């Protein structure tokens, strides 16, 4: 399972595929204020990125993959994201 809830935080881990997009959306619909932790994330399907961009949750943690870190993380970090970026 690469999308799960731990301590009210949505955790994305490993390879997040298209199927995960729907589950992620479900968790965010339940509670839009939930943090999303990306620190264990290796790849992310476009559909997952799309949900994160549309829902703009607070992001925590930096993904493992350098491409995600360099090009995708900046698109997702909102003014609400903690500046430190470490896992909570």
């Amino acid at each position, binding site marked *: 399972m690469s999308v799960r809830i731990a301590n009210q935080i949505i955790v994305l881990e490993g390879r997040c595929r298209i199927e995960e997009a729907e589950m992620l959306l479900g968790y965010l*619909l339940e509670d839009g204020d939930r943090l999303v932790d990306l620190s264990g994330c290796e790849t992310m*399907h476009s559909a997952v990125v799309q*949900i994160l961009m*549309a829902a703009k949750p607070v992001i925590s943690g930096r993904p493992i993959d350098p491409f995600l870190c*360099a090009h995708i993380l900046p698109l997702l970090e909102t003014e609400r994201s903690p500046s430190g970026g470490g896992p909570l």
Partner: protein
Amino acid sequence: MMDELLAQFLIEARELIPEAVAALERLRLEPADKSQIDSAFRAVHTLKGSVALFDMAPAGRVLHAAEDLLDRARGGRVQLNAASSSTLLACMDRVDGWVDAIEANGRLPHDAGAIAARLVRRSGGAVENAEPEDPIQIVPTWVEAILDREPNAQRATSDMVAFRYVPDAACFFRGDDPLALVAAIPEMVVLTIQPLSPWPEIDVIDPFHCNIVLEGLSAAPMAAVQAALRVVGDQANYCAVPRQTDEISTASDAIRTFRVEERRIDNLVDHVGELAVVGNSLASIVVDAARTDVALAQRLRTFQAELDRGILAMQRSVIAVRLVPVGPAVRRLPRLVREIAEGLGKNVVFTIEGESTEVDKAIADTLFEPLLHLVRNALDHGIELPERRVAAGKPAQGSLRLRFTRSGEQLHVSLSDDGAGIDSARIKTIAIERGIISSEASALLDDGSATQLIFAPGFSTADQVTDVSGRGVGMDAVRRAVEAAGGRIEVESQVGAGSNMMLVLPLSAITTRLLVVVAGDDRYAIPFDRIAETATVTAGQIVPLGGGEALVLRNATVPLLHLSELVGRSRTASDRVRLVVTRMNTERVALAIDAFGERVDSMVRPVSGLLATVPGIAGTTLMGNGDVLLVLDPERLIG
């Protein structure tokens, strides 16, 4: 709406024309300089586009011909030479004149069509071996948007490829992952993902409907970028972004700018000035507070210090905002020099140095008129006719050099020519003839001082009033203009070798709010920020104290001094005493004056010469009626 468009056009035209002219000037010397050809082409091309919006078709035709010629030169299909560069320069000068005409009259002069036809023929004559022209490559707007997002100047070092990939909405169902495809593009410099249409609310979003646009910039070769997106080739666009030459990259690395109406900046200056006055009045409150509550006063003092720092920082920033390069202010001079020199049959090279020197906008704006007059004078009376120069052993071509340099808080403007110079003996004779100076006084003047007589009112060295400089305004008008801007002018000259006019101007022209006060028969100005309060008391309230006088003002004893006595005059007796209360360290001191005058916002000029040694004088200021008042520094005056 039209007016706004026109105003925008005028600003743009006056940036583009000098750009083109500068490049063409350099091409006259080095006709094969590729970067200058490019630079001239770009400016002409952009200008041609803007000109089309207004009723100035002849300008459009001239620019089209110039652009055509430059484009052929760019493509190597035609070689520019000194003659064709001069033709192009003539085109730009003419368009420049027409832009002025549009601004002044809203239309071109009647002969515009005929002149345009002549210029088009001249430019066309140089391109006899015409070939069909290449279409001009236009950078698509999506590429421009990506380039804007490129944070570093990496484009200066390598060629790049911009791509834009718009996956179709159903691509997820086919198993496409656009992000994975894009991630495979090597050497990604910029990647952005944006929604194709605005994101819906998340409770109605369809997670399997693809709604993104992926755009970016890669430093990899075109083939490598295309290979990565091969499977979705029909949904992607590419554009090669060639490495930028140094010149262009300076433009793109330049600090982003936007235009602000001057009035708004002036408002800002005013508000900061008012804030400074408020800040100053806090000082007296702190002193009052210290009498009743030391701890509160301490807190207030800390607060006041912070406020002062903030105000000072704001003043500095506001001054910086008003700084502009002097170049645009004198951009019309080169054309006018060419026109005037041609009219006089003189051959002159005009150079401008230090155009990027920054000065206050108000100072830059005052430069043009005096400089134009000085330039006319130099061309008319300074630089000799070619045959006369050759006879004197000089090159036939005269040189006129305008140079801007910054020296501390001053702008130095020097205009030097290698002409005939100023004959001081002749200057003296004329000055005596016109009653400016007596022959006895003139005998005492050395050559340098005699030369300065050209700035005296009523002096004009023109034996005959010529079309160029004899317009009833002499060098004294130039001097007045320079002095009104807070500057001064000096002349140095050597007979036979040339003259140098030196203008010294302040870099900043921020005005100071002043209160005019009367003491005896004299009027003085005191900066508002040095005044804690003003009051009027009866003579009976003044009591002797020690060797002097004092009065009780708001429960505190304040020493009293008479301004007339401080400036070396005797005081006038009066029943009602008007006071300006100022601050000496933390103590209040009252200055008795005879009357309050007006409040003015004026520029305070630093004093020079003898006055500079008199303590208590902060400067001088020029009043609207032409009076010059001393600006007092009360603190130093009392001390």
